[in-house]
C-alpha cells in the first residue's frame, strides 16, 4: 500500500498503440508544416524544423515516458492506478467502493488486443477511474476478480 508496493506495468503493446496515435498526429502536423513551407518563399525550414522536433518528441519520447510512469496494482483488494508524466496522480479505490465496472475496447485497442478497465465509484471526485493499456484478457480477469470481491462482501 506504499511506495514499496510493486506496480504492475501496462501491456507493452500499449506503448506501440500510443506511438501510432502520436504518429497520426505527427503526420497531420508535418503535412500542415509542409504547406506552410510551400507558402513561404525559399526553403528556409523555419516551420519545418521545430515541427519535426515536436513530432519526434511526440512519437519517440512521450509514449515511452507515459508508459514508464503508468502502472497499477490489485494488492489487498484495492485497485491502485498511477499515471501522469508532469502531473502525477496516484489513486486507490478499494473493491468495496466499486459501484460498477466497464471493460471497453476502441477500434485501435481491438487491433492491438488491448482494453480499458473503468471502475465507477459513488464519489463526486474520481467518479470513474479508468486504466487503459491492459491486455484484453487481463482486463476481463481483473473485472472478474473485483466482481467476485464485491459479491463476497455484500453477501
Amino acid at each position, binding site marked *: *500500500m*506504499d*511506495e514499496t508496493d510493486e506496480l504492475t506495468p501496462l501491456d507493452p503493446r500499449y506503448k506501440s498503440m500510443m506511438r501510432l496515435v502520436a504518429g497520426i498526429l505527427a503526420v497531420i502536423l508535418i503535412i500542415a508544416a509542409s504547406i506552410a513551407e510551400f507558402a513561404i518563399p525559399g526553403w528556409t525550414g523555419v516551420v519545418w524544423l521545430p515541427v519535426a522536433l515536436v513530432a519526434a518528441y511526440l512519437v519517440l519520447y512521450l509514449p515511452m515516458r507515459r508508459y514508464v510512469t503508468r502502472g497499477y496494482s490489485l494488492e*489487498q*483488494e*484495492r485497485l491502485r492506478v498511477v499515471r501522469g508524466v*508532469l*502531473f*502525477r*496522480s*496516484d*489513486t*486507490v*479505490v*478499494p473493491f*468495496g*467502493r466499486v*459501484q460498477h465496472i466497464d471493460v471497453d475496447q476502441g477500434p485501435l485497442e481491438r487491433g492491438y488486443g488491448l482494453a480499458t478497465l473503468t471502475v465507477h*465509484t*459513488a*464519489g*463526486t*471526485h*474520481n*467518479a470513474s*477511474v479508468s486504466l487503459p493499456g491492459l491486455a484484453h484478457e487481463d482486463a476481463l480477469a481483473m473485472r472478474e476478480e473485483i466482481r467476485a470481491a*464485491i459479491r463476497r*462482501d*455484500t453477501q
Partner: protein
Amino acid sequence: MTRQEDARRTDPRSFAVRAVTMLFQLVIPLAVASVTILDDGDIGDLVGYFLPLVIVIILLNVVIAYLQWTKLTYTVGESDIRVESGVLSRAARSVPYERIQDVSLEQKLLPRLFGLVEVKFETGAGGKDDLALTYLSESEGERLRELVRTRRDTAETQDAEETATAPEEAEVLFAMGPRRVFTFGLFEFSLAVVAVLGGLAQQFDFLLPFELWDLDQWEQRLAGPGQRLAGLGPLAQAAGIVIALAALGVVGVTTGIGRTALREWDFRLERTAKGLRRRRGLLTRTDVVMPLHRVQALRIGTGFLRRRFGWHSLKVISLASDSGGANHDAVPFGRMDEIAPVVAVTGFSLPPEDAQWARALARYRIDKAVLAALFLVPATVVSALFAREWVWLAPLAGLLFTVAQQWWRWKHDYRALGESQLYSRHGWLSPSLAIASRVKLQSVEIAQGPVARRRGYASLALGLAGGRLRINGMPVAEARRWRSAICDSLARTDFSRLLEEKGAPAP
C-alpha cells in the same frame, strides 16, 4: 397493509391549477401580440378576428389540460409505484419500492393556495429522471410518503415493528422564528442586486432622458441647474456620495432580508424515525427528509462578518438530491451550541479537543504566492512602463491580495485525522470545517504537479459521494500515511452495506 391495486388519478384541483398556469403563460404572449398587432390600424376590425382566435386557443388549452389529467394515473402496487401518462403516446414507468430513496413534497405558491402538493419520488438517478406526481392533495401526499417508507422497510428488512410507528412523533432539533430569520437576512446582504441594478441602468439607459455614462454631459448638467449643487462645495458632494451608498446599502439589506424570509420562513428541523425532516419556505414550502444513514459528511460554515457575531451554519452532504444540490441546509444560521446536538444526531461528532491539527506546508503557500508573482510582477512592470497611468495598480493589487490570502490560509487552514473521522478547516473569507467519516469515502488520490514533486508536497483528493474534499500541501509521507489509514478503514465495510443499515450512525 391493504392491497390497493386500483389506478388513481391526481387530485381534480390539479387540473384547475394547470389551467390557471397555462392561462398565465398565455397572457404574456397575448399581451405582446396584441401590442404589436393592434398597434396600428382598425382596432375594431382586428378584435373581430382576434378575439375568437384567443378564445379558441384558451379552450384548446383547457381541453388539453383536461385530457392530460384524465390520462395520468398512478397505481400504488404491491411492490412498486406505477405512473401511466400521455394522451397520444402513452408512457408507463414503474419504480420498485426498494429503489425509492426518498419521497419529497413540494408546494409552489399556486398549488399551495389550492392545498395541493407535488410528490417526488427520489430514486438516486440524479434528480432528472425522478418520478413526480403533480398534484395531489396534502393528505394524499403525506399518505403516499408514509406508505412508501413502510413498504420499503418491510421489503428490505421484514421488520414489522418499524411499520407500526406510522404517525411519526417528531422531536424538533432546530427551528427559526421570525426574529432569527430577520437577523439571518441582515447578514445575507447581497451586492448582487446592486450589480443587477447597475446592469439594468446600463441596459435601459436609452429610457433615461440623458446619457448616463457620458461625463462631459454630466459636467454640463452640473454647470446648468446643477451649478448650485457643485457650488455647495466638497462637503456637500461627499454627503451626496454617502447618501447614495446608504441607498444602495438599504436596497442590498432589504433584498437580503426578503430573499431569506422567502426561503427560510418558519424553518423547522425535526428528528423522525426516518431521518432529519426539514420544512421551510414562505410561498414555496418544501419538506425534505434526509435519511441519517445516507449522510456522507458535514460542513460547518460561517461568513467573514457573521463569524464575529458567533453565527454558523451546518450543511449535510447526502446522497439524496435536494432540488439539485446534494448539500442540505440542516442549520442555516445558528449558534455552535445549537449546531452541536444536530451533529450528534447525524452520528458524526465535532473535532475533539485533543485533535492533532496540522497546517499545510509553508513551502506550499510560498510556492503558490511565488507562482502568482511570476505572472503579476512582470504584468505590473510592463503596465507601469507602457500602459496608462493607473493600470499598473490592478496587477499589483492582485499580487498583494494573493500574498495576503496565502498567508491567511497558512495561518488558518488545518487538517486532522481522527479515529473515525477526518477534518479539514479551510477557506479565507468564509471559512468552513468539513467533517467526513473515514468509512464513507470512495477513493483516495494523491496528486502532485511538477512543482509539488520537486518541493516534496502533495494534495490528497478524497472521493466523497455528493461532495468534494481535497487537502492541499501535505508532506508526501503524511499523505501516504493518511491514505493507507483511510484505506484500512474503507476495507472493513462494504459501501452498499453502509447504505442499507437503517439509521446507523457513522461508526
